[in-house]
């Protein structure tokens, strides 16, 4: 098992959940900040997840 696959899926999915939640509930902010933390963190996680999946995909392709 290539660990990049489950890690990639986990972060991509979590990223999507956070982006969705950031868009769906943009007023979900915390006392000390007005930033839409969910939305931006979600994007970072989605990008990281896709990056891991791409690495794993490239490794499979170069093997076969």
């Amino acid at each position, binding site marked *: 098992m290539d660990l990049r696959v*489950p890690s990639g899926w986990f972060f991509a*999915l979590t990223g999507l959940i*956070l982006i969705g939640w950031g868009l769906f509930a943009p007023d979900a902010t*915390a006392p*000390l900040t007005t930033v839409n933390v969910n939305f931006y*963190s979600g994007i970072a*996680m989605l990008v990281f997840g896709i990056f891991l999946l791409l690495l794993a995909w490239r490794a499979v392709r170069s093997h076969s």
Partner: protein
Amino acid sequence: MKLAPVDYVILVLYFAFVLGIGWRLRKRISSSGDFLMSGRSVPVWITSLAFIAANLGAVELIGMAASGAKYGIMTAHFYWLGAIPAMLFMGIFMMPFYYGSKARSVPEYLKLRFDEKTRAFNAFSFAIMTIFSSGISMYALGLLLHLVLGWSFNVSVLASAAIVLAYTFLGGLTSAIYNEVLQFFLIVLGFAPLAILSVSKAGGWRGIVARLPPNMTHAWRYMGSPTENPMGVELFGMIAGLGFVLSFGYWCTNFLVVQRAMAAESMSAARRTPLVGTLPKMFLPFIVIMPGIAAIALTKMNVGYALPPNAAGGPDYTQALTTLMAQFYPSGILGLGMTGLMASFMSGMAGNVTAFNTVFTYDIYQSYIRPNADDHHYLTVGRVTTVVGVLLSILAAYVATRYNNIMDLLQLVFGCVNAPLFATFLLGMFWRRTTAHGAFAGLTLGTGAAVMTLCTTVAEGKGGWIANWHQFPSQMAQNFWIAIIAFAVCFVISVAVSLFTTPRPDKEMEGLVYGLTKIPHDATAKWYERPAPLTAIVIVLLVILNIWFR
């Protein structure tokens, strides 16, 4: 703090992945070596991240934010002065002997290099220590979830123990290592936003410098005298105690971390494990310590943030991390952050349990209870020990409810057991004249010296149970000096006794000692796969960081 449904979705998703990884890895296990040593087949990027993640338990996470709030940027010395140099030393100089000796554990190396009694001493003390650490992780998790989320202590402890047991039982060390890496990513991605938000709210590093006393924003400038810096430690105690004895003792001899490097797929990968690990490790202070420092700046800004008081009336630094989360994280990312905390508690437990079952199976069971059984028998013993280890940890967690300060207890154990150990390894690996009797005498008397120092000196009202010969300005200083004394006693006694006892023939020590071991030279490897260029890069970055925050 209250979690919303979206937080629970993320929490459940994460643990579904954790258990799924364990389930998928179960097919890989066909021998005790697969279960307890990952069959020595884990890629280097995974072992490197696991190497540092095994140490990034939630006790450390919360403790580092608390230290940041209490001591300021000096806390980064645990990384920049302590861990990094020790990890470099481990990768360059010590790993060839660990990996090359074919030892399956750190105690087993001691058996190969010295003799049975030194191994027994190390194996038993390590086994007890891991169970305690694991229990403390569990206890801290239960307490935190109860305090922050209002969950039941018992349910939290038992549920987390069940998850840890499930994935370590299924996939053994590989499962523990893989989940440590997943947890490491989660910690970085889940807490980096907190660091960014809290530091920028406090006006960036400049804003923090303007709001805090200067000795909290300089790592080196106030080190001359213990009365000037918040840690109460002087330069020598810091460099020799933390920078040398404690850090080298932990990173180079603690089987919990060494085991991760030993699981690597080749000698070259094993040596690179700690070296590659230093690169992310170096930047962790920005995620784990900075929020604590920013928290103190925020308390001086009248934005409505304050640290809750502790029992003694002072600020409760241990709540710095969780109170910041409550102030900066809306539901969603809050669930992710809490999941990260829970995950790091659990991987702390899993790390200890997987180290415990290896040491118990190979160094205690196979050595003293039933040698010469077939491998399948030891695989079963390894699995049973995993269950027993988790049960003992739960017991230890309930024992820990009777002690107040968790980190103190941990550090006392580190000080007394780990400090002399590094002298034994240093002599054993680099001075072939060191004899088994010398090592054992040094190790036991060194540990004894550590205990005696603790019993005859006082710091912040603790210690000095036999006499009060010396008063340390802080517990930190006391810990560092206990380590220095234990190391010195162990070193001197080992050398002295070795000179009066018969040396071992060189032939028996091939692969175990410097000068009698062929150290592989990777001339054909790419530059970034060789230890020397990697180390050079790390040292340059390290010097820059230290100058920046001097």
